């Protein structure tokens, strides 16, 4: 049977650029957020288990490794939220023009980093007074 020229998947022949970087990051942060969901449940379950278990959970969350995981989950949350808004606009047919797509992409990424910093500082503002 003759081998026909089959169409290739986009990633096989598209140049790597900001559009697909932002897009794949949306997917990656979505997967990371699913992990963050278990972190949220862990926190709630610890709160329901009483003061001692809650204090133990906070101690566990304060280790450098868990702080890194929490910072990652927080960034994933902010990025997925901001880029999600951009994707919802795309679904309405808004923002496909190259110029618009470019600035909304950078704006969403910038807003995600800014929101991550604000939330991280707010989360640690009362550290020491807790538990």
């Amino acid at each position, binding site marked *: 049977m003759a081998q026909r020229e089959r169409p290739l998947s986009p990633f096989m022949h598209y140049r790597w650029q900001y559009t697909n970087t932002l897009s794949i990051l949306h*997917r990656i942060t*979505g*997967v990371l*957020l*699913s992990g963050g*969901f*278990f972190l*949220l*449940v862990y926190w*709630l*379950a610890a*709160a*329901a*288990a*009483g*003061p001692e278990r*809650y*204090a133990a959970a*906070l101690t566990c969350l304060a280790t450098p490794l868990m702080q890194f995981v929490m910072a990652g989950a927080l960034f994933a*949350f*902010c990025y997925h*939220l901001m880029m*999600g*808004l951009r*994707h*919802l606009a795309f*679904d309405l047919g808004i923002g496909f023009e190259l110029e618009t797509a470019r600035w909304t992409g950078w704006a969403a990424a910038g807003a995600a980093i800014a*929101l991550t910093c*604000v*939330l991280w500082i*707010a*989360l*640690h*503002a*009362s*550290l020491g*007074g*807790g*538990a």
Partner: protein
Amino acid sequence: MSLRSPLGKALGHGSAKSGSAHWYAQRVTAVALVLLGLWFAASLACLGSASHEQVTAWLRSPATYVPAVLLLAVGAYHSAIGLRVVVEDYVGAKGLRAAVLLVINFALVGAAVTGVLAVLRIALGVAP
């Protein structure tokens, strides 16, 4: 080799008219999660690293436990649909794909139920 024509093979296997259901549900839950996510982010920022007493007092208010339960339920569903798309894109083997999806769905439902019960136990005052 089959003697049936490509058209003959395709006939009768048309759209089940439900192809866009997951796509649409992903968008509906996304809009809900924008609101619930902003609420949760603002709440966390206000709570900081609050004491157990402060956190449980916060969770005992209806203005907290209603959105909290919604966040857990809608979040788990949004996550389940999203992870399904990712798994279907990257896991080719049918058996492995089914197994991975099963584990993901079991884990998400288990986590959501655990979270909702934790919120309810605190809200109803049965938690220590």
